[in-house]
């Protein structure tokens, strides 16, 4: 499967990544190469193999339902560009 310029731009938009217009052909060729590898793997007959959701063959450990975290808002907000009344401020989101 080969990606064109429009595909690359869409992927960049979905990932919110700003890309350099000139490098789009490079990205398209690199990403197409990755997809080519995936296609190659897809061609292998895996009918007899159960799909895995994780490379480790282990089960998720569960935690007890207890509150263990205390309020550290001031620390977290010290590294935030802008806060007000305890809220993080971000560029306006229009609904």
């Amino acid at each position: 499967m080969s990606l064109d310029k429009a595909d690359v731009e869409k992927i960049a938009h979905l990932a919110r990544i700003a890309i350099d217009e000139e490098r789009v052909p490079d990205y398209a060729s690199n990403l197409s190469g990755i997809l080519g590898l995936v296609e190659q793997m897809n061609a292998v007959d895996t009918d007899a193999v159960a799909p895995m959701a994780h490379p480790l063959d282990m089960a998720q450990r569960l935690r007890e339902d207890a509150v263990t975290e205390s309020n550290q808002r001031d620390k977290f907000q010290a590294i935030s560009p802008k806060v007000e009344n305890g809220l993080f401020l971000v560029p306006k989101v229009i609904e």
Partner: protein
Amino acid sequence: MEWEAVIGLEIHSQLATNSKIFSGASTAYGAEPNTQACAVDLGLPGVLPVLNKEAVGMAVKFGLAVNAEIGQHSVFARKNYFYPDLPKGYQISQYELPIVGKGHVEIELEDGSSKTVGVTRAHLEEDAGKSLHEDFQGMTGIDLNRAGTPLLEIVSEPDMRSAKEAVAYMKKIHSLVTYLGICDGNMQEGSFRCDANVSVRLKGEETFGTRAELKNINSFRFVERAINYEIERQIDVLEGGGKVVQETRLYDADKDETRSMRGKEEANDYRYFPDPDLLPVVIEDGFIEATRGTLPELPDEKKARYMEAFGLSAYDAGVLTASRDLAAYFEQVVEESGADAKQCANWVQGEVSAALNKDGIEITESPVSAAMLAGMMKRIADNTISGKIAKQVFQAMWAGEGDADAVIEAKGLKQITDTGAIESIIDEVLANNADQVEQYRAGNEKVFGFFVGQVMKATQGKANPQQVNQLLKGKLQS
């Protein structure tokens, strides 16, 4: 042309855990902004989610309650999208292997019939934070206290055919999650929310029409209104020769209409993939069986018991068992008063419910406790007061004037059962109404009611009605 609506609901139910689904931060509602958002909830680099055991147990409870298969091997996936109240850039949810598989519930319709609605699946996921769009220096404020709160998203089959059926289904699920104690069901605080997928087709068609997804519906009343508005809108579009566009629409309760959320709907591409930070969740048979043992009596079973043990009609039993709190109130009244269950049901569904509606409060906030109502029922049973006077006593108890005995005493409402006293009042009534006595004796039995009325009036309703009838009959026939 006859149209038919096809409706499916996605219900988000916040699970009543103490801590978040993947972190040890508190889930308590109403805290100062961002004081319950820890490094995991903020999506800071290097953090790892660890799954809350209680959230898993609650999901299993729900699955058992809707007769669903429990996904004994279930997987968390990342649902990728960008929004500032989702700091990681993805929501941890479930995609291919949810914890609860196909199940079903029974709903009751207005005509008394019932219908089975399929539950497609229910999966665990984390809630997002809240965006506040009031003006903060021209910016949007973000509160991440809610981020990471466990949600059970319950997806129905497109089995509903009217807004009323959708509401009945939503109420059923609400009743189940609150009975199970896995959700507080508070719709104002957003603990129980619903999106509706609505489409219409010509009656008899096999295929579904194009659907619109309605968001932001936070009450049973609005679900019905939003769906009805949307059905009408789609029929108008189709009959006008147009096409329904697949889109997300927001319900505006103030204007009672739905409107398109985005001019240009970008096809959702969430790029789901298994979350490498979380291993598959394995649920052993033993865990499922142990959970089954903790299930309380559920609304359908309770309803059947009320019909069987108390002789209540399906309708009465359905109303009383719709809420676990109301059912508990009713049962306490029956138990403590020893009165006839049907009579207790009438009071709970009648006076109590009317007063609750009038004051806009819940049964748990009732100023007349179950014990107080039981106390009053006892006074009806032992003939201290009549059913009619009881309404006066109830209103006084509601107004905070004390329990039944205190009210009866203070207001002098005790029923007159002294035969001599009633007789002397009857004598007086008969003496003052000689004309009517003549009429009665001449064969006009209708005036009997007039005499009863006069005696009750003279005693301010306090005379025992059976005694009045009996004594009056005796006097008039003598």
